[in-house]
């Protein structure tokens, strides 16, 4: 009897699954590349709306395209849907010349689509995460089908970088949906159309997204018939699938990269993360008011040893918010590992009166094994000089809930954090976490850094429109950070992806938020 019930429910379940997942039978096996394109910190599984894309842009840019895009080295912008663009003398007008392209449903792509998209992206009611960053745009004009003129209220050096993340959307398909309803529309995950080399076929909830080659893509028909983006709960599961031969590519943790580097079947791709990791001092708790205490942190932590052993050398120690050569002055303090000096600094500052050996919570949202090891190492090093920190790992929602809490947060919940902030390719990235003007709720200055010198340095750098002069301004920011230590800056680590050696002309880089970058998916192919 039990068996009968069991069999029945089994048959029923199989039937359910069958109806949900039936596909038209294909006459011939199409060539397919499968990957975990949304695994890791640059991915965003389950988001299909480019206006809400805080990350996951690597994958979205396979079927949508922005006007301009960073090259794969993330060093400069190149054309995507705009073949060229020019900035006016006063930096208040950008003119884009558009390419000839059709949407995946055959309609022509025109300047009207660009105007539609930019206005939507500026509209916070549409759920756009770009609204504030596009605030300088006053109007978008379309003199003809192939030309777009964007007018700005004031020069904005970050605008083109932002536009590189705004995917152009089809006006004809979306104009009938009210902006307020756009974010909850099912269009994104069922029938989206873009201009990219691949077009959307289907999304099987929480399992994978399937794309098919766009036959009339302007740069030639893609070499591979299908791309599949498989979803994984964590990178360990993706690595298992990679090694089982089920996927051709995924993001991996440094440990896995080191192991797979010796394997002839795989190619390890390494790139800078553009995220600076830091130990953040909560400036409201009163423990860190003395700069000598903050300096003691820098001298007490053997960053070089951690980089050598735990990161396998694939990280660069940071003595301010930056590590890029052009942003770091040569004469800043290098804060060599020197526990004796750290102890001396703490003694001078009177650490035994300030806190002594009472435990200090060290909050983080990093829950990878590597981060746990790093924090254990730092904890041990700090205890050598008499600072007793206790790591506390929470998930991202809890972390954000604690540090952004409305009203007055409980500062003692996060006297110290271990976190990271995007510091490139545009150096303005860390402003949001350090400038006085960015105190929550206005910004992300969660450590409540209120240093007038530092804020002034940021404001000066942000206001500088001449690129050469701007570099000197960012160096000033670095110098102030190095001397004042609003954070104990740790390092900028590399991140990794692993691709099967069967993949030909595959381009990927661990760009922050997933880029996007010019990866040219139409050229990817797989040798059998």
């Amino acid at each position, binding site marked *: *009897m*039990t*068996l009968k*019930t069991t069999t029945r*429910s*089994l048959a029923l*379940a*199989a039937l*359910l*699954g069958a109806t*949900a*997942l*039936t596909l038209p039978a294909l006459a011939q096996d199409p060539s397919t590349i*499968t990957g975990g394109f949304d695994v890791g*910190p640059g991915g965003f599984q389950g988001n299909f*709306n480019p206006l*809400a894309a*805080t*990350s996951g842009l690597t994958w979205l840019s396979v079927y949508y395209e922005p006007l301009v895009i960073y090259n794969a080295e993330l060093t400069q912008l190149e054309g995507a849907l705009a073949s060229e663009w020019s900035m006016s003398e006063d930096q208040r007008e950008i003119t884009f010349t558009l390419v000839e392209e059709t949407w995946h449903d055959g309609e022509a792509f025109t300047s009207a689509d660009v105007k539609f998209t930019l206005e939507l992206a500026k509209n*916070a009611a*549409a*759920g*756009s995460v*770009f*609204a*504030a960053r596009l605030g300088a745009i006053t109007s978008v004009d379309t003199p003809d089908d192939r030309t777009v003129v964007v007018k700005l209220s004031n020069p904005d050096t970050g605008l083109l970088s932002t536009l590189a993340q705004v995917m152009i959307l089809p006006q004809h398909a979306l104009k009938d949906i009210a902006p*307020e309803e756009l*974010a*909850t*529309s*099912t269009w*994104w*995950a069922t029938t989206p159309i873009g201009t990219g080399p691949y077009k959307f076929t289907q999304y099987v*909830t929480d*399992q*994978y997204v399937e794309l098919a080659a766009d036959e009339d893509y302007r740069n030639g028909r893609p070499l591979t018939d299908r791309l*599949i983006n498989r979803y*994984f*709960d964590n990178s360990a*599961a993706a690595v*298992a*699938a990679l090694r*089982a031969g*089920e996927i051709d590519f995924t993001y991996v943790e440094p440990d896995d990269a080191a192991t797979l580097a010796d394997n002839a079947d795989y190619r390890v791709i390494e790139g800078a993360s553009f995220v600076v990791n830091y130990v953040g001092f909560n400036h409201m708790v009163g423990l860190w008011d003395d700069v000598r205490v903050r300096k003691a942190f820098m001298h007490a932590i053997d960053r070089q040893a951690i980089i050598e052993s735990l990161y396998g050398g694939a990280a660069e120690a940071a003595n301010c918010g930056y590590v890029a050569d052009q942003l770091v002055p040569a004469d800043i303090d290098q804060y060599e590992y020197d526990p004796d000096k750290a102890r001396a600094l703490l003694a001078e500052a009177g650490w035994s009166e300030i806190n002594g050996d009472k435990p200090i919570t060290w909050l983080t949202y990093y829950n990878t094994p590597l981060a746990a090891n790093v924090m254990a190492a730092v904890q041990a090093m700090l205890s050598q000089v008499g600072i007793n920190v206790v790591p506390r790992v929470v*998930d*991202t*929602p*809890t972390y*954000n*809930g*604690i540090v952004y809490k409305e009203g007055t947060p409980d500062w003692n919940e996060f006297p110290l954090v271990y*976190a990271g*902030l*995007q510091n490139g390719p545009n150096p303005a*990235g860390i402003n949001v976490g350090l400038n006085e003007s960015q105190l929550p*709720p*206005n*910004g*992300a200055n969660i450590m409540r850094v209120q240093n007038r010198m530092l804020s002034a340095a940021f404001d000066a750098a942000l206001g500088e429109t001449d690129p050469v002069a701007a570099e000197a301004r960012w160096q000033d920011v670095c110098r102030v950070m190095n001397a004042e230590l609003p954070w104990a800056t740790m390092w900028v680590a590399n991140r990794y992806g692993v691709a099967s050696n069967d993949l030909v002309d595959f381009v990927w880089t661990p760009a922050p*938020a997933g880029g996007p970058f010019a990866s040219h998916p139409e050229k990817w192919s797989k040798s059998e």
Partner: protein
Amino acid sequence: MVLALSVLVFILLRLAPGDPIDAYVNPASPLSPDAMQALRDRLGLDAPLPVQYFGWLRAAVTGDLGFSIQRVGVPVLPLVLERIGPTLLLMAAGLAIAIVVGITAGIISAVRRNSPTDIGFSVLAFVGISSPAFLTALLGLYFFSVQLRWAPSGGMLTPGAGFSLGDLLAHLVLPACLLSIGHAALIMRYMRASLLEVLNQDYVRTARAKGVREFFVIVKHAVRNALLPVITLIGSTIGIAVGGAIFIESVFNWPGMGLLLVNAVETRDYPVIMGATLVIGATVIVVNLLTDITYAAVDPRIQVA
């Protein structure tokens, strides 16, 4: 009962730290306050909680469980319903294996009491009960998928390949077998104990004395009666099976309720947690009822109230 459950879960979730909005913000590339507020409005997170609850309840009565916060625009009910099939399939397959293996091993053990086979089975059963599901799942995954490549490492169907029964079974076998370990062990132990008890009873002795062949004694008389407590056991462990399935689903990326719930808890997706808990609770209640009915069918002495 299900209603009380929903209130309980809602109150519990109210106590949770963090706001669903926070799951959207990557601390390394934070959003501006305008963008946060826009997200918040879009997700409808600003209503007071009792309003959120009663709104949810009113709609739930008509079968509308609201929309997922994490998967923007996706209604909860179909989301949850499409996960029941895979979970039931996995659990049914796991239980079926467990029942066949457990009962067979239990009978063999009881019949050959204290033989090396019995001791071997009993020790194996103890080890099975004492091993955490996630550890056996990880090891199984590693040996059978990564090393031997006998079975896929996860998912329910090969992505993009279209549906075929063979493909489904290939994906099902490994997680179902791993899920069945703990249960097979439990069932085996109960079956053994129960059969030993029955074999000691008068009517079995009478049958033996009458010269009925040992095989028939065991199959016709003893096993049928010994099955009763085992069926109760199976029914009462459905809840535990759901728990075990969570680990298996999480390791094998099986698109079931467990995976849905774990993800929803991670992202504070209240509507999905509520919907999933409600459906799981209801399923457990129904399954318990089914066990009672099955029990009544096997044992005529009991009437279903």
